[in-house]
């Protein structure tokens, strides 16, 4: 049954480009980007309880590394994206090593600081990054085709989700959840909580780098908006609204919010306000998100 359901989702995902026009295909690609972002953020926040505000910043690291390598070094975007992913992972490791021991508030503040440092550097190193003006970078494919990009994003997203699923079902995943449930009990049960958190933080940062690299090469334009706190909020809202700490939550949240934002785009700037209100109500009254609500209703019946 479950297998059939998954096959169904997969089939629909494959068929999407054949009955969406260019515009909605664009929306679908962007939602896949957000699926990667929200799911990987969920890995640290939802599964080990650390609120990182640098997730968008790591996407920025991926985007700028890959974009600038391609532009100035002539490196093929595929290699550049790998380099960006690695760099984001290494930075994640360093940043995590700096503050994970200190715990929750310190991690949040340090990641916020990191994100701000990155924004300032990108804004000021105009001669390389063109600051807020944005940098035009080459695409992944020599011929621009949204269908190609869609399948690329889909493949990477699926591969990522499968990997994440396996990780969560492994010993490491068990340790993640133990740390989230009760840090003290986990540590006296032999779990190296610092290492577990660092692992989650590093892999999730690398994942954000990968997503960011792909995103930059799809838009062919990278700006400090990619590593901005506004972007960070969107990712957080998607995870919270979908359901933090559940596997499907951030996926559903990302797709729903991205499509919704296209429908309410006439309200321009205020869609952030609306998302914020929805996220606040959900965080306050239904901390397990849409998925949690759904399960509650399902169980009651």
């Amino acid at each position, binding site marked *: *049954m*479950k297998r*059939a*359901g*998954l096959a*169904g*989702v997969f089939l*629909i*995902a494959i068929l*999407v480009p054949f*009955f*969406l*026009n*260019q*515009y*909605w295909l*664009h*929306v679908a690609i962007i939602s896949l980007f957000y699926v990667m972002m929200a799911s990987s953020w969920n890995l640290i926040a939802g599964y080990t309880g650390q609120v990182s505000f640098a997730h968008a910043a790591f996407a920025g690291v991926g985007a700028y590394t890959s974009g600038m390598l391609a532009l100035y070094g002539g490196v093929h975007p595929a290699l550049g994206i790998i380099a960006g992913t690695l760099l984001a992972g290494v930075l994640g490791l360093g940043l995590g090593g700096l503050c994970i021991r200190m715990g929750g508030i310190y991690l949040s503040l340090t990641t916020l600081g990191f994100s701000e440092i990155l924004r300032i550097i990108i*804004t*000021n190193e*105009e001669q390389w990054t*063109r*600051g*807020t*003006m*944005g940098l*035009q970078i080459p695409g992944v494919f020599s011929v*621009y085709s949204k269908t190609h990009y869609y399948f690329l994003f889909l493949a990477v997203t699926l591969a990522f989700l499968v990997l994440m699923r396996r990780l969560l079902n492994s010993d490491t995943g068990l340790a993640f959840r133990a740390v989230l449930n009760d840090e003290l009990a986990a540590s006296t049960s032999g779990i190296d909580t610092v290492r577990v958190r660092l692992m989650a933080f590093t892999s999730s940062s690398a994942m954000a780098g990968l997503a960011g690299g792909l995103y930059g090469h799809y*838009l*062919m*334009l*990278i*700006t400090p*908006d*990619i590593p901005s706190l506004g972007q960070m909020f969107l990712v957080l809202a998607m995870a919270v609204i979908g359901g933090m700490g559940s596997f*499907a939550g951030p996926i*559903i949240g990302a*797709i*729903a919010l991205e*499509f919704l934002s296209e*429908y309410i785009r006439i309200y*321009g*700037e205020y869609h952030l306000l609306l998302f914020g209100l929805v996220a606040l109500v959900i965080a306050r009254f239904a901390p397990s998100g849409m998925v949690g609500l*759904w399960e509650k209703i399902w169980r009651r019946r």
Partner: protein
Amino acid sequence: MRKLVGVLLGFLVLVWASDPWAADTIKIGVVGPRTGPAAATGKAFEEGIALALDHINASGGVLGKQVEVVFEDTGGVPEKAASGFEKLVTRDQVPIVVGESHSSSALAEIEVANRYKVPFIICEAWHDDITKKNYKWVFRAGPANSGVVDFYIAPFVKDMGFKKVAIVRENSDWGVGIAERTEYNLTKMNIPFVTLKVEREAKDFYTELTKLKAENPEIILAYIYGTGLHFFLAQAHEVGLAPKALVLDGAGPPSLWESFWKNVGDAGELELFISSMHQDVHLTPTSRKFWDDYKKKFGKDPSDYKTRSIYNVLLIAADAINRAKSTNNEAIVDALEKTELEVTTGVVKFGLNPGSYEYHQWMPPMLVVQWQNKKQVVVYPKEAATGVLVRAK
């Protein structure tokens, strides 16, 4: 799992159902900032659009259909600008796009225009590269940095005999481009200068101003857009730099915003700014008509010349589609290249020689205006002047 399939299917149905269907209007796309630090431009654009639509549709519309404008917000952010432009093309399927006032956004948008082969007429993004890239689909019926500096700012500095110049520029494409062109001109004319860069949206300039004071300049060319200019001007007075050194607002509109006097107080007196509009200077009958109809519609004098710029490009777009007799992109570009249309600022004719920024470019005449007793006095060029430059004692 079944629910996930359901949710996905539901989305697809929704998406499908919302596809645009054939309309009986002609849509023209407009891009510009309606939110963000330059949202005032969006307001100015909206007024210009309303007036242009009145005029175009009153005279029978385009190809016998009414014209409709889809105004996409860019927030002044290049990334949003590019995706907004793309939405106009892929979702609304507009045959032509006009507008834009940020060089950074425009530089991102022309790539999209070029990718989708959609004609795009820019009205107020001044960076040379926009037309210098020589994209077939990109036109500009508005100032280019080089034109503004070469024909107005540099000659003004020279003719008025300023001996020491300070350039203060924000870190945007416009700021960088216009400052570089100014430096080039000043070097050529042997006028000493210093350049300082400031952050876009900065509010505190004390540090920069203190450094500047040591240089003792006679005129400060301020390439800062938005309210940042107001704070710069006010603080220049506080530290005793202005009005001994006159401040020239290299963009213009911020010196005309309602908030200007509120934010600068007495520091606004003697400030100079670039403009392409003055109530006593009318270059064409269309300019007069625009002024009168604007007053009738909005009950006030037009203040932001960007209202007029967007009005102009909409007239140009409508005229081109009419002459192309179709909404085919190639036909529109052909028609645009043959444009000879009177708008508020003169008769538009796009340059056709590739190789420089003058390709597909038409430069409207500009003025240098000074606030004297809270009145706008045109002080340059001489043939349009309504008064003389006043310096501080």
